[in-house]
């Protein structure tokens, strides 16, 4: 009864002054909303990234000139490095005993045109034909094939296109066998990839793969006055031998690039695992940001609630006097005000949870992230709100409980 009454008083005081209530609770709302929104988005990203990286396979690694660049200095240093070439790829292919397949790719961006229609800024990759055996490239059913070895060896102007190219440029016809213009060069479409969706607002379907030889022929071997650097993609014999394959490849490249034994690699090797590490680093930053924002918001929210409760105690001094005169003990009054402040904070917490879930939903609708909410985080959200209500409600409640009944009764 007392509990219900306390909850009721708190809800009624919220309802009577809606604007003030929103202002009162905004801190708690933001604090809890941040927790729910960020954790649900990260949970969604976890699933997504796990899916994506599983396409790479734990027996596969990448070698490029850059590696994982974490600072400006590293970037300036990497800029000066020698390019990685197709010859490097061949050397690894010939000499690495633990490597099963070795491929390469190089990227640029071009306009892609079909009579009349065109797409700007499409990612064009020159690839080796074995790329489809190394990474998971899915073909749209009944829509042709990937780039062939023959086309790679004979610089053929063949193109394997992303789903968006078909969707935008060939909405009503089968694109296989048709011509498209990449830059100024005609290419014949040989196959279409399955739809991959978008990630963080970026479409992942507007790409074209062409034989790397044709790529060099038509888009040049040089970039900004330097030889174009390729990315080497290696599939080890098995998951167990990936470390040996990486060691061998590293030794081969160091020898070819004449890296002194006491110097670091002047190229980078990455596995799905290193990318996963990078991602984990990113999520832990996101978690830290979340903890930072939400704790500031919760403390601010708590202070506002404390102020509202102090005002409430003052306004209700006489009521407290009456209750004490009728037999309320200190702890009865204490509880009454604690219940009230916790109720206030919990209302904020519930609103925050709803808004956080809404934010997650909006992100889920606009990205392939399946924003999922662990009920644990909802419980944590409620727990945080309750704690704020308790922690910041104690001072006003103690103040109320300590009031002298006679003085409280005399209060005007």
């Amino acid at each position, binding site marked *: *009864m*007392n509990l219900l009454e306390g909850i009721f*008083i708190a809800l*009624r005081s919220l309802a009577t002054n809606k604007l003030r209530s929103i202002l009162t609770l905004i801190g708690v709302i933001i604090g809890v909303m941040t927790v729910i929104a960020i954790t649900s988005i990260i949970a969604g990203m976890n699933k997504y990234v796990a899916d994506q990286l599983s396409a790479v396979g734990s027996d596969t690694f990448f070698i490029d000139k850059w590696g994982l660049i974490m600072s400006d200095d590293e970037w300036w240093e990497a800029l000066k490095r020698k390019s990685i070439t197709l010859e490097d790829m061949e050397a690894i292919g010939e000499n690495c005993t633990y490597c099963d397949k070795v491929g390469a790719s190089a990227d640029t961006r071009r306009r892609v045109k079909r009579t009349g229609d065109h797409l700007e800024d499409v990612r064009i990759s020159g690839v080796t034909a074995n790329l489809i055996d190394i990474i998971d490239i899915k073909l749209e059913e009944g829509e042709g094939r990937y780039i062939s070895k023959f086309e790679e060896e004979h610089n053929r102007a063949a193109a394997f296109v992303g789903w968006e190219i078909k969707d935008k440029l060939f909405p009503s016809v089968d694109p296989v066998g048709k011509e498209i213009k990449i830059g100024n060069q005609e290419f014949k479409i040989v196959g279409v990839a399955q739809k991959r969706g978008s990630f963080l607002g970026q479409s992942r379907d507007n790409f074209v793969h062409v034989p790397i030889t044709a790529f060099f022929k038509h888009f040049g071997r040089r970039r900004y006055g330097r030889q174009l650097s390729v990315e080497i993609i290696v599939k080890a014999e098995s998951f167990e031998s990936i470390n040996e394959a990486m060691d061998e490849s590293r030794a081969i490249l160091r020898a070819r690039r004449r890296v002194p034994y006491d110097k670091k690699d002047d190229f980078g090797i990455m596995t799905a695992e290193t990318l996963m590490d990078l991602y984990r680093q990113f999520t832990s930053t996101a978690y830290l940001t979340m903890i930072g924002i939400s704790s500031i918001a919760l403390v601010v929210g708590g202070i506002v609630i404390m102020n509202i409760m102090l005002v409430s105690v003052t306004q209700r001094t*006489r*009521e407290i*006097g*009456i*209750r*004490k*005169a*009728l*037999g*309320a*003990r*200190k702890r*009865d009054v204490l509880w009454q005000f604690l219940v009230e402040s916790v109720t206030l904070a919990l209302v904020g917490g519930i609103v925050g949870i709803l808004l956080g879930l809404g934010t997650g939903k909006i992100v889920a609708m606009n990205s392939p992230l399946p924003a999922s909410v662990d009920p644990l985080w909802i419980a944590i959200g409620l727990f945080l709100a309750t704690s704020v209500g308790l922690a910041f409600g104690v001072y006003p409640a103690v103040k109320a409980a300590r009031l002298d*009944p*006679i003085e409280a*009764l005399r209060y005007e």
Partner: protein
Amino acid sequence: MLIRTQDLWKIYEMGREKVNALREVSLEIEKGEYAAIMGPSGSGKSTLMNLIGCLDTPTKGDYYLNDKLVSQMNDDELARIRNKEIGFVFQTFNLLARATAAHNVELPLVYNGTESEVRKRKAREALKMVDLEDRATHKPNELSGGERQRVALARALVNNPALILADEPTGNLDTKTGHEIMNIFKKLHRQGNTLIIVTHEHDIATYADRIIYIRDGAIEKEERKKN
């Protein structure tokens, strides 16, 4: 003996100045008595009532209620006495503005853990005693002054206390309404309740069997109705 005070002192310290609100007040009141306390303004009537009502503790002296030494009790024990043994009626009614009449009457029962059902029944009975059953769902601002004081009376007697105290219960009412209230007190007295009321008005004081006059914090004289 229901009430026995021995040399009660209440001294307020106002900076360097001391106010002797009560000086050596020794008083005995038996169960079933009806007493009125009179005296000029500032003579210490309310101070004495607050001590008897366990809202306050004396500076010096002993106070026994039902042979229990109340003047040495801690806050929680005093709260319990206020709840169980005492029903207080104030000049300014002191009802909870947001609560209905019935809920106001229930309030003392809330603080001794009475079940909701029982509370509702007892509140209804108490309101009946003061002829206000039909106002149970009214808020104080929907009641006249006299009705408010009757709600306060119902609240004071709902717990069936050993003692009902009223500090100028008619002070905020017109004469007619005041006498209506006093008639209810008379009824309560006939039913065996012990009553102490503070008043300025001789008319009102004559309802009691015994009038205690105080001046400057000390008992000046007493009168008993002869019958």
